[in-house]
């Protein structure tokens, strides 16, 4: 294997990541916020994915932003506040 092949797999050299929409912000040492945003594709599929994600994380998710507001999730930002 070529050393440069290996090097080019590094995340820091993959600028495509600038276009990806998932964000994890370290708000405090044990508190993270995860932002999941649909940028394209099937809304129904996204909702299935999102519901699945939040159900699996039920134990550590305090509140999703959907639960804070009423409705309003037409392909917009879905957020979840998570304690680590």
């Amino acid at each position, binding site marked *: *294997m*070529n*050393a*440069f*092949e*290996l*090097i*080019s*797999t*590094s*995340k*820091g*050299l*993959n*600028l*495509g*990541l*600038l*276009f*990806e929409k*998932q*964000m*994890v*912000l*370290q708000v405090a040492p044990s508190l993270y916020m995860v932002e999941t945003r649909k*940028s*394209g594709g099937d809304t129904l599929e996204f909702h299935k994915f999102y519901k699945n994600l939040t159900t699996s994380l039920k134990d550590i998710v305090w509140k999703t932003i959907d639960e804070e507001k009423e409705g309003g999730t037409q392909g917009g930002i879905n957020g979840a506040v998570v304690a680590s």
Partner: protein
Amino acid sequence: MTQCVDGFKHVCNSLFRCFDLEIYKQSGGLGDPELLARETVFSVSEIEALYELFKKISSAVIDDGLINKEEFQLALFKTNKKESLFADRVFDLFDTKHNGILGFEEFARALSVFHPNAPIDDKIDFSFQLYDLKQQGFIERQEVKQMVVATLAESGMNLSDEVIESIIDKTFEEADTKHDGRIDKEEWRILVLRHPSLLKNMTLQYLKDITTTFPSFVFHSQVEDT
């Protein structure tokens, strides 16, 4: 008469020093999309769509229309807690004004190199500069080792020093045709033309679809529909 002019100049200089931060600070903003389109591979619409991405990234920590190092790291790694040798190199290469921040012009001009339609010579040049960590015009063996070690550390992969040395040996055997222990621009060019996959991360397909990814640019468009 010349005394008046000198006096005036002196007053102006003092004034400018008072407003140092303002005058020398880079201004945010889109600038001239048509000029940027002429001087990059992007179309005007693509420039405007790119500006939507730029706005998002540049407002993450300080909303000043400029991307600082922390905002760049945040945009790349989705966390503000990650340091990276490579992200630093990329940021430095984007930062052609060398003032530690990226204005939209620097952002657009640098990303133009990553467009699928950009000339391959630009990609070859950019990647060479990227890997020339000390910027001495050569990619030295020590720099390659540093980058390999950094890549492995990032992915949590463990390779013995022996294995790492042998990988670098083989790479230099092929690349360093002048046998001087380092890779110059010419040798780099020959290497990547023979192994095009080495330039794979120099092309972002996303840039071709950018007007569909950021359609809101239409609402802010400064350009007439043609």
